[in-house]
């Protein structure tokens, strides 16, 4: 398990939740705040192990709910559901392709808020919904889609620059050296 990657993902989730709560620039201009946790979940599901996916869902969900009026723990399941499905299918996904990452980021950003609202309604809460919610959902989806390439590029750069790189073994091995005789 690459611990550095896990720490990086969790730190990014922490900062993302803090940024969403304290920098309402998008909310001010477009009437909705984009959520970066689904995008981070896509990255984690494609590149990290199941423990990281679970940790991100639990901690990211708890951090998000702690700063919002959501019931504590309601964001864990939508995040984990998306991450888990992608994680199970990741061998079938061309995850190195930017287009595949973009599509997954868009889908995750669209699905997570819908699942969260459905869970809230199931729990008997009354979130603020209306026709404007469709616009907010579109902004969240588009925001997540726009952030996906940047998130992937940033993490790849961080991993290359700061992470542990596996040592590349040379093809040469002394025991396999062919010692030629005189002829």
């Amino acid at each position: 398990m690459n611990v550095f990657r896990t720490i990086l993902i969790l730190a990014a989730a922490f900062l993302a939740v803090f940024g969403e709560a304290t920098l309402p620039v998008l909310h001010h201009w477009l009437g909705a705040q984009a959520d970066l946790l689904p995008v981070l979940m896509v990255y984690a599901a494609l590149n990290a192990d199941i423990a990281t996916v679970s940790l991100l869902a639990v901690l990211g969900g708890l951090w998000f709910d702690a700063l919002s009026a959501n019931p504590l723990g309601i964001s864990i399941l939508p995040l984990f559901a998306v991450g888990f499905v992608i994680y199970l299918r990741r061998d079938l996904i061309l995850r190195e392709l930017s287009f595949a990452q973009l599509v997954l980021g868009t889908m995750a950003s669209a699905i997570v808020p819908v699942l969260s609202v459905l869970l809230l309604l199931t729990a008997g809460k009354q979130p603020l919904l209306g026709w404007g919610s469709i616009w907010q959902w579109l902004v969240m989806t588009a925001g997540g889609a726009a952030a996906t390439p940047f998130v992937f590029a940033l993490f790849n750069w961080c991993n290359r620059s700061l992470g542990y790189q596996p040592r590349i073994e040379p093809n040469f091995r002394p025991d396999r050296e062919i010692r030629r005789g005189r002829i």
Partner: protein
Amino acid sequence: MFRKKNYLALGAVTLLALLILSLPPRVTAHLKLTIGSLFLPLFGLANTTQQLPADLADSVLPRRELFQQIDRLRRENEQFKAQAIQTAAIARENDQLRSLFGWQQQAPWKLKLANVVMRDPANWWRTVQIDLGSRDGLRENLPVLTAEGLVGRVSSVGLTRSQVVLMGDPNCHVSALVENPAHDMGIVSASGPLDTSLVDLTYLSGSASLKPGQNVITSGLGGVFPKGIPVGQVVDSRPVEFGLYTEARVKLSANLGALEQVWVLFP
């Protein structure tokens, strides 16, 4: 595809989520505040960063402009002093009249200034957090306002910060009356998720005669909000449920989209 490790993760996360969701509200509120306090160092950092440009701007402000500002503020101060004397006289007269009629005396408002430190990251709630908590004497359901008008009420209180549920959130209902001859009363409730400046005034009587521009203030009913706090102005009205009652759209006096400092009102 489904390995044992995946099963374990699925089971553990689902179980943990259900466990947290089934906790009693009191425990959840404490947990929320504990987890939220992890962000406190970042709040401090953000405040310092936001303050830095303002401090820099202050330090390069020309001396002449500073003197102009002082002069202007001094004049404003004199005006406010005169107004305060007049208000005190009116208050005394009001108290005398109240005692003549045998009405209960009105207690003066006690206000405490708070900074808005963050907004709700979820789009389906309308709440903010302020930097006052139980150590500052805050408790649930205290009204929160700005100089322009009512903002909302305190919904949960931590040691150093509190959550304020804003007007227009489904969890913030305010009994209000329209300043017209009939003093029509209704309930201010949520409007749409996009426009933070508009709320609905519902359950007005079917015969209510509302005109755009009429002021809406708190009615004092319900025991949370004292009477007379400005809420907003009527934008338009329409009959609902075949004229059974009237509903109006109200433009809020306070700008909820740009809240930086608010007053918490202590009764």
